[in-house]
């Protein structure tokens, strides 16, 4: 099912993008959680926007590179000219994509846990006036898990387009539209939450709605049930991408 040489190749050719996105996101997190000026906005700005925007850009570029661009440019020929099945190719590439996201959020979580241990913050300071107590390590892990699940769904949809189309033009075009709409609608919905009338309806337009840090911070269980939806979207999208890629004609 898994091709090690292909996995190596994917890690090698996507390391720069992965490294820079992980680096930027982790640095931003450290900045938001350590600097007095920005601490209060750790959730509204960093966890509210950055944890979907930055991985969103990463999955958009990377998922296209994993399949469509290699078919478009012809380099996929070298992979398929070896005893590697098409299903092995899609499985390995999807495996890379999901695990690179897990690693990305893993590093982010570790960095935030360290910062939080060094400089704890109360939920009140974070803008959640009604809540008592500090931001706990458990909360940090849960928030990241919730964000990760949504990013995996974003990745899966981009991956699906990458598997369906043999031309970068269409793969990037549709994935880009999808990521753009998802992130933009999420931001508008956030303004809706902050009190702008009517904008909250945008939450129905985006997968990011299933990422719910409010529920984590208030100690609810909703965020867990909400993870079922992005998980289902991811499964269906990965499945469809794989199915089409397996059957289609490849101009190699």
């Amino acid at each position, binding site marked *: 099912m898994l091709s090690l*040489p292909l996995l190596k190749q994917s890690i*090698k050719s996507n390391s720069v993008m992965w490294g820079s996105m992980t680096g930027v996101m982790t640095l931003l997190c450290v900045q938001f959680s350590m600097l007095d000026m920005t601490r209060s906005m750790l959730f509204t700005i960093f966890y509210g926007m950055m944890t979907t925007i930055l991985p969103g850009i990463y999955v958009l570029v990377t998922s296209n590179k994993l399949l469509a661009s290699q078919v478009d440019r012809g380099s996929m020929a070298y*992979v398929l000219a070896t005893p590697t099945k098409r299903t092995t190719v899609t499985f390995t590439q999807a495996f890379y994509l999901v695990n690179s996201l897990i690693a990305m959020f893993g590093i982010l979580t570790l960095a935030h846990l360290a910062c939080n241990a060094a400089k704890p913050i109360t939920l009140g300071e974070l803008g959640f006036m009604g809540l008592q107590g500090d931001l706990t390590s458990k909360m940090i892990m849960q928030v990241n898990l919730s964000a990760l699940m949504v990013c995996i769904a974003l990745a899966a949809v981009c991956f699906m387009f990458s598997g369906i189309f043999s031309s970068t033009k269409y793969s990037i075009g549709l994935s880009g539209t999808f990521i753009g709409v998802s992130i933009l609608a999420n931001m508008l919905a956030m303004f809706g939450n902050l009190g702008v009338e009517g904008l909250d309806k945008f939450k129905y337009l985006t997968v990011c709605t299933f990422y719910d840090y409010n529920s984590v911070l208030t100690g609810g269980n909703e965020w867990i049930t909400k993870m079922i939806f992005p998980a289902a979207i991811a499964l269906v999208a990965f499945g469809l991408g794989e199915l089409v890629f397996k059957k289609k004609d490849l101009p190699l």
Partner: protein
Amino acid sequence: MPDMIKVSNMTKDYGEGKGIFDFDFSVKQGECFGIVGTNGSGKTTTLRHLMGFLKPDSGSCSVMGLDCLKDTKEIMKNVGYVPGEIDFPDVGSGTSFLKIQAEFLGVKDKEYIKKLADMFGLDTDAPLKRMSKGMKQKTALVAAFMAHPKVLLLDEPSTGLDPLMRDTLIELILSEKAHGATILMSSHIFKELDDTADRVLFIENGIQKDIVTKSELCDELPSLYRLGFKSDDDYDSFIRKTHLSVEHESRGNLHIDIAADSSQLGILFGEMSRYDMRYMKFKPFTLERYYTEVFEKGGRKSA
């Protein structure tokens, strides 16, 4: 000898007359089979079907008795492929590409990879993106040949190579053939097919025209002889009296081209002995001439 490659009534219609139509041929084990045709005539499409990249609209193809669509993985264990369009995965240098490729194919013999690279005078440490067309081609060739595959599918393998390297490639192909490899290569450079192929398939606009066997080329078809004369009189007189067919006249150069098969050689030399000759040159009957004859002039009926 069993059929190593078999294409049966295979059609792939891209619309507007593009595609390949009702291709039907087979290649025996240890044979080198050439495909010749103009650009867009279907050479690459044929090879892509054999690689299992494309699904035929009707008909089928197989390699080593295995279906190209269903048993791709099994087939690929024994196939070396040089694609028509070369672009490499984004993995940095040629060395790391070849290393990963060797892993894919389970090739342990690193020495042979180095030997192949040296043979082509290829510096594998160069970054893939900075490579010239020739270097990319050489890298692709090393990748295709490194596992000593039983079947080689080569799509215009000499593109971008200089004439010396082209000869190296021909030697390599011949040595793999001597070791029993079955080779199917497309080309529009006739010389390399002249030197390697046992049989050649001519295609035109997706239609299979003719399969020519090399021995047929050499023996059955007449060869061309160019005769140069010393005087105008001799020149005129020869043309008037000869019993052989004059293919080409050139009064300015005082030479003519005569077509004669092996049974007519006696007549040719007999006639020549009566004149003052400047020279006689033998022009081997090559695929190129056959191609010109059959397709451009429409001389021989298509099969």
